[in-house]
């Protein structure tokens, strides 16, 4: 032990001099891209306080002008509410369904068909959202759309819905599309987390002890795949907060503003209304919401991993 200790210390010293350049290999790309990322974030921050409306850049300082305008628009408040709905209803159902589905696949629910199912639920990700959104518009049309037509064929007329043409329900149907898109990734990440030998061993032991399938899921698997769940959770939160494509194609924020979200408003403000500063302000708001949500998460992650 003693010799090892000395050896380690010596090597540490020697390595320290050498490894600076080595470590730079790992550090530099990271710093480079973080700097660029934050240059762009900083640009957005600055522009939100500038006077840029119109096509050409105007960089003069304008204070809180656009924030004031933003807060006076009812659209903004509806958006924030919608975004929070998305966060709640988009992220957690996806997570839950993915956990059960991943578990189901792991316990051999579909032995031969497993990769088929996985490919099937990954398929939406292989296509442009512009096109999948168009298809979902057609699925959701109340009079001749796919779903209602099927329901009528099956004599289940009473189950028909007005889907996204009804202000009260539109958001939920959009969130369903989100779940549809992201389930594939979720299951992959969770399955990867479940496939560690330690976990397999624990599960085998539990089976010997006679634990039920659900018991195994809740008592053994879930506590041990926390890493995967946390990664997944952050990815889903980010995607839900930034959601744009689905809204753009399927409802364009309508009917009224019932499906409007901040990222969509940001797009319209910047590129259609030419109010670039307002758009930047909206991006900042998204950022701030993210900050509020992500802080507890990072504190937790920090405690766990940097401890």
């Amino acid at each position: 032990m003693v010799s090892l200790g000395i050896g380690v210390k010596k090597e540490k010293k020697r390595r320290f001099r050498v490894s600076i350049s080595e470590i730079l290999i790992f550090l530099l790309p990271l710093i480079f891209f973080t700097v660029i990322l934050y240059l762009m974030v900083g640009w957005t921050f600055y522009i939100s306080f500038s006077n840029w409306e119109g096509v050409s850049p105007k960089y003069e300082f304008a204070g809180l002008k656009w924030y004031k305008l933003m807060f006076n628009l009812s659209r903004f408040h509806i958006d924030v509410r919608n975004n929070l709905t998305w966060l709640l209803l988009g992220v957690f159902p996806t997570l839950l369904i993915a956990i059960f589905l991943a578990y189901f696949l792991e316990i051999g629910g579909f032995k031969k068909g497993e990769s088929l199912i996985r490919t099937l639920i990954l398929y939406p990700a292989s296509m442009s959202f512009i096109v999948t959104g168009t298809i979902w518009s057609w699925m959701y049309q109340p009079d001749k759309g796919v779903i209602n037509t099927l329901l009528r064929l099956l004599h289940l007329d009473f189950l028909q819905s007005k889907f996204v043409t009804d202000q009260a329900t539109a958001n939920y149907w959009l969130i369903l599309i989100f779940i549809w898109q992201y389930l594939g990734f979720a299951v992959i990440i969770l399955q990867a987390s479940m496939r560690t030998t330690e976990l397999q061993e624990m599960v085998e032991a539990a089976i010997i002890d006679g634990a039920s399938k659900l018991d195994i899921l809740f008592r053994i698997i879930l506590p041990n795949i926390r890493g995967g769940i946390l990664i997944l959770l952050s990815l889903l939160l980010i995607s839900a907060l930034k959601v744009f494509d689905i809204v753009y194609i399927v409802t364009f924020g309508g009917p009224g503003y019932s499906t409007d979200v901040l990222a969509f408003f940001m797009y319209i403000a910047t590129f259609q209304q030419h109010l670039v500063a307002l758009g930047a302000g909206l991006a900042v708001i998204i950022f701030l919401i993210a900050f509020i949500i992500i802080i507890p998460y990072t504190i937790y992650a920090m405690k766990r991993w940097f401890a």
Partner: protein
Amino acid sequence: MTEDILRRKVSRRRALSTAGKVAIGAIVAGVVAGIGGYYSGLSAAPGKKVTEKVTVTETTTVTKTVSPTIVTRTTSPTEERKLEIFHWWTAGGEREAADAMFRVFKKHYPDVTIVENPVAGGGGVSHRVVLQARLSAGLPPDTWQTLGGAELKAYVDGGYLVPIDDLWEELKYADVIPKPLADMVTIEGHRWTVPLNIHIQNILYYDKKLFSELNLSPPTNYDELMKTVKAIKEAKPKKAPLGLGTKEKWEAAFVFDALFLEVAGPENYVKFYKGLSDPKTDPAFRKALERLKELQPYIYPYHAGLTWDESCGLVVSGDAAMVTMGTWAIGYFISRGWTPGKEFGAVNFPQKPARILLGHTDSYGLAKGAPHPNTCRDWLRTVASPDFQIAVDVTQGGMFARLDIDPKEFPDPIRQEMQIYLRNNPDKLILDQHGSIAPFSFTQAYWDVMAAFITTPDIDKTISDVATLMETYKVKEEAAWYHWGSV
């Protein structure tokens, strides 16, 4: 444990070396592709070096003959004969129109190379994104398709266009197009683009076979419209008398404008969108909303989920009897196999008490800092020429900008009739929702309010919303540039 790891390490070694080789290969490929792309990009994408020094004054003389116009021009020897052009005519009939544009251009000027950047999205929806980003980064093309009106003003205010008064003088263009059309592209006394067509907004398309079956004639004002929709509803309860698709929101404003124009009359229409009348006290605005509310039950109920083309599709599939849409729908109907005058008819709406055409134009200008300004000017000359407009407008679905072209060039009776009307009444043309009298910051939000109204017709709320929008987006100031008649 360590043995395990070591064992895996050994079998990993092979996997690693292949993985490593793949990774290195990918990176090398990437670098090579990048460098190759860079150099091919250099030759393919001109205009990366943007110089602010653009001399507007040219030197040499021109010989010009009256139609068919072949204009020759000597250009400075240093400029490459290339045109970098942005447009949104990308598929089907529009693509043919774009090809026609370039065919005629090459006929006039055989030595040019055309580098086109087609960005799909009618009305320039995606266009605005690309231009906003590229212009603020200093990467302008030579010219781009623009609708005139407030959208054009945004580019003018940004300083991205060069005034082309000299070109208009040379071509005497103001003499051959309707004055209101020229005014759409005239801002602060200068001409900024060359219109190549006119697209009319307020057209009512109807299912001709249905109308003859029910012995109906196309309505020309609101009272007739209400009679018609009621008759259709009685005879065919499953069919929506008026089809509509409000997904992109502006379609709702089209319907409203059709009613508003009749109630307000042309001058008050213009005054309203110039922000000169208060929505809260304007009797015409309120009345038009009331009328729209009356009409609402006869409108296709699931409009929120349809795009404009799908709303025209409602007429084709028999789910609706009529639809208000612009002249570009003619191309759509044709692509579905319907012939103008046979399966469908179209009339301006309203036609009483006055028949006004609400329209916008597709036009091209000269970018400031354009990589090839002289070639661009030649392009603009071509755009203004009759053979260009005949070749392009007939295919694309718009009307001729030039009034000296024979309306019979149109294969369909609908546009023939409208062109003749325009010829005889060139002043009856007002800028519409797409081209926009009011600034786009207002117009976008206004469309949202109108689309919401059709879903839930709350008159008072709509009036107060619109009034707020007019203030928030300073419509009176921003729309002051537009003039029509005495307004």
